[in-house]
């Protein structure tokens, strides 16, 4: 997918509508977010922040989000094109550059309900804050539900209104008599018509409407259809350029070894021999690492392998997974108290640290020239990557030109605050200036220097009355958690989840579905234990408690029907059900597993029913649910990072196993259209997987798995 380079060199300049304006009534009036345009809007064809129309009749949609496999760029362009009534074949997609003008604007809307009169100020205020903080995030399953819903639709509708206004003037008719279809404005009575391209130069002179009329969803012709992703040709013919692929004249290559214990520092290293090796330009001692810079990457790797750096352990050398879980256990203390006289169910659950293990290891290129720099990488936040490099170099962010490239996976590893590899490359390139330097982390470095999904532990207690009706379900948990972990859609009088603190030195960060990945498992596995204690069918037990949540009930019933819940299965097979809500979407799943007499697991199929309100691109939406299921299954079944001697024990894909084709189940996905606000899809399919599969294993074998990954458990009947 093309990158926007033309204006990237023009800089941020003065922007029209660039500040809050004191209105005549004395109230603070904000310009609408999508009205922010660069000074040269007339020459670029910029109708508003997100939409450009040029005389060649091409509509270009600027997408302020990266492409890491989720298909959001295509979906967001569809949302804009739908409102414009543009011909989809004449729509082009460009990733917005790393400029302040394209800072996040709408993400706050996913978390707060904003009253109509305040929307404009809220979005503009969010944008000003994001500019200040340098945020251009792709994450939180936010692209479609925030930028798409509040930005692209409005930008598209505003562009359409401007084009129609220009057409009406040209035709000498009223705008209300003009119709738009396939990038053409027509006035039926006079027979006059003009293409978007023919109207582009006049339309750009129209003022940007702040509240253009939006299309009735029943009139959608492009949304709710399956459209091929525009970037995929380059991803089957090898031409896509990822961060790791970037190359520029005179570029040197760097390889690093980082202190294995988090927080450790380089103590000493003898660099003399390595410096004499072929192609080696320099061996650099960084605070926490040693780096070799050479003509080629292999030369750098080969020289690095000969070094014997000594690192300290920052006092964490005695920490292990066992000590971390012991601390969790101690912090949790006694289980939550339950009413006396009830049937009480108690259980402890554990999940390990997990790496993102993006297929593309961390990679970045930096070129420092005097007091300016250029940076190339594929990250989930171009503006933060830019400021990270600027900070490392001691220059201002505007002195850094950042170009985002394709991402070989993200899953949260490349969000703001986690650009340590950009920081490291900048420090190396500063020394090597003016030569550009590309740093590629080895898989070993990537595996051992991540920001891991936090390991966590939960201690549950639940109570049932004599009829099997649940009275309470509560837990304490340690290792990470927040408000989103506490919600259960079940009508149980007493529901609680309380965090208990137990700190450790392991670096943690957001991992696809964030804390929902742990708590989705905990809650949906424990509720299954309660159903079993109540001697009720796990599906019926859940459904009967969903009286207050009809959307959940509809999803649960749909997925049960898809999976033929209740139909008898052969011995050794079982179905498990789970349902979670995250990022604005409800996902129910049923896993069907078979456990052979020797205890070998086969996950035969996973069905998913999804209520995300509405779907934009039906094909990429399905792909995200399919992918989320596989990602969640890989983690639940096989995924585990353990800590030994203060450091990560695993180093590569031979000892960190993940899913391959032979382990992948059949997947079936169906969507429910509801009147709910549009939800995210990049993450919500992950949280239910672990519980659906472990509940299915219980149904098949009677073995209840309370500690992940599943591979560590014996599935032989007790």
């Amino acid at each position, binding site marked *: 997918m093309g990158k926007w380079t033309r204006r990237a060199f023009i800089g941020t300049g003065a922007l029209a509508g660039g500040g809050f304006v004191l209105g005549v009534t004395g109230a603070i009036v904000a310009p609408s977010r999508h009205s922010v345009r660069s000074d040269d809007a007339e020459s670029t064809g910029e109708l508003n922040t997100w939409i450009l129309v040029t005389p060649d009749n091409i509509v270009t949609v600027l997408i302020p989000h990266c492409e890491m496999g989720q298909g959001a760029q295509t979906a967001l362009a569809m949302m804009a094109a739908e409102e414009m009534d543009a011909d989809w074949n004449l729509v082009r997609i460009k990733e917005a550059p790393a400029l302040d003008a394209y800072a996040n604007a709408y993400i706050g809307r996913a978390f707060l309900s904003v009253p109509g009169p305040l929307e404009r100020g809220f979005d503009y205020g969010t944008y000003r804050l994001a500019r200040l903080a340098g945020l251009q995030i792709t994450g939180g399953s936010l692209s479609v539900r925030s930028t798409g819903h509040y930005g692209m639709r409005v930008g598209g509708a505003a562009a359409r209104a401007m084009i129609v206004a220009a057409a009406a003037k040209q035709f000498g008719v009223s705008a209300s008599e003009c119709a738009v279809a396939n990038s053409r404005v027509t006035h039926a009575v006079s027979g006059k018509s003009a293409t978007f391209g023919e109207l582009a130069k006049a339309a750009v002179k129209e003022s940007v409407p702040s509240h253009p009329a939006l299309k009735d969803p029943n009139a959608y012709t492009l949304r709710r259809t399956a459209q091929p992703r525009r970037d995929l040709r380059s*991803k089957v*013919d090898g031409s896509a350029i990822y961060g790791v692929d970037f190359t520029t004249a005179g570029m040197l290559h760097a390889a690093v070894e980082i202190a294995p214990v988090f927080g450790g520092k380089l103590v000493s290293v003898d660099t003399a021999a390595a410096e004499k090796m072929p192609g080696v330009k320099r061996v650099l001692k960084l605070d926490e690492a040693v780096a070799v810079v050479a003509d080629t*990457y292999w030369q750098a790797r080969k020289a690095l392998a000969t070094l014997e750096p000594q690192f300290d352990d920052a006092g964490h050398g005695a920490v292990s997974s066992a000590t971390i879980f012991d601390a969790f256990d101690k912090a949790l203390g006694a289980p939550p108290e339950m009413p006396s006289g009830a049937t009480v169910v108690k259980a402890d659950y554990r999940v390990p640290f997990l790496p993102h293990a993006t297929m593309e290891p961390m990679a970045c290129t930096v070129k420092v020239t005097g007091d300016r720099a250029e940076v190339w990488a594929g990250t989930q936040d171009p503006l933060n990557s830019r400021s990270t490099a600027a900070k490392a170099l001691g220059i201002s962010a505007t002195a850094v030109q950042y170009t985002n490239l394709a991402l*070989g996976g993200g899953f949260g590893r490349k969000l703001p605050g986690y650009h340590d590899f950009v920081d490291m490359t900048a420090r190396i390139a500063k020394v090597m200036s003016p030569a550009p330097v590309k740093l590629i982390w080895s898989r070993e470095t990537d595996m051992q220097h991540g920001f891991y999904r936090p390991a966590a532990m939960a201690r549950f207690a639940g109570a049932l009355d004599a009829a099997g009706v649940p009275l309470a379900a509560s837990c304490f948990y340690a290792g990470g958690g927040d408000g989103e972990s506490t919600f259960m859609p079940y009508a149980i009088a007493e529901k609680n989840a309380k965090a208990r603190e137990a700190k450790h030195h392991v670096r943690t960060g957001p991992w696809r579905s964030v804390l929902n990945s742990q708590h989705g498992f905990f809650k949906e596995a424990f509720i299954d234990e309660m159903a079993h204690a109540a001697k009720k069918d796990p599906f019926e037990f859940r459904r009967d408690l969903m009286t207050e949540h009809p959307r959940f009930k509809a999803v649960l019933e749909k997925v049960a029907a898809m999976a033929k819940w209740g139909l008898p299965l052969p011995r050794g097979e079982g179905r498990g059900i789970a349902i979670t809500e995250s990022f604005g979407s409800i996902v129910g799943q049923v896993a069907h597993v078979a456990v052979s007499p020797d205890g070998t697991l086969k996950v035969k199929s996973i069905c998913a029913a999804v209520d995300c309100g509405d779907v934009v691109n039906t094909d990429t939406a399905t792909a995200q649910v399919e992918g989320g299921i596989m990602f969640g299954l890989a983690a639940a079944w096989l995924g585990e990072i353990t800590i030994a001697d203060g450091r990560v024990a695993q180093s590569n894909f031979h000892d960190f196993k993940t899913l391959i*084709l032979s382990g992948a189940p059949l997947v079936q996905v169906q969507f429910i259209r509801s009147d709910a606000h549009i939800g995210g899809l990049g993450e919500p399919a992950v949280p239910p997987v672990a519980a659906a599969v472990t509940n299915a294993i219980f149904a098949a074998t009677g073995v209840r798995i309370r500690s992940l990954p599943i591979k560590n458990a014996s599935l032989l009947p007790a």
Partner: protein
Amino acid sequence: MPITLTVNGQNRTLDIDPDTPLLWAIRETLGLTGTKFGCGIAQCGACTVHVNGKAERSCTMPVSSVDGATITTIEGLASGGVLSHVQQTWLDTQVPQCGYCQSGMIMAVSALLAEKPHATDADVDASITNICRCGTFARIRRAIQSLTATSEGGA
């Protein structure tokens, strides 16, 4: 000693460290970046290329060990801008998500289907052991099944 290779139909002479893995010779010396680095220990398959028609993981293969060989990379599958049958099926099925592993997947599947045009699911499971972290396996399976169901297979 320079090493000679035929890469995507062109004769190439490489004057590099003979230890250099074929992967880095392809990516850096020849500038063909469609072949990806994923693990460096032949575990993930992102670096899969064809060496004399056979799928090989190029990250652990010293370039000296393939002197004189015929190499095909992902850039060499299409002919005159027309995608190969496997590539086109990948596109039609909208298989890739981030796409990083897909060069290797396509190379591995192309080699398998050239040998066994009607490969069974069991053949595929045994042979296609590449890692994908986005989780595109459902579509990979579907794409392969649509290829093995047609008479041309993967050729």
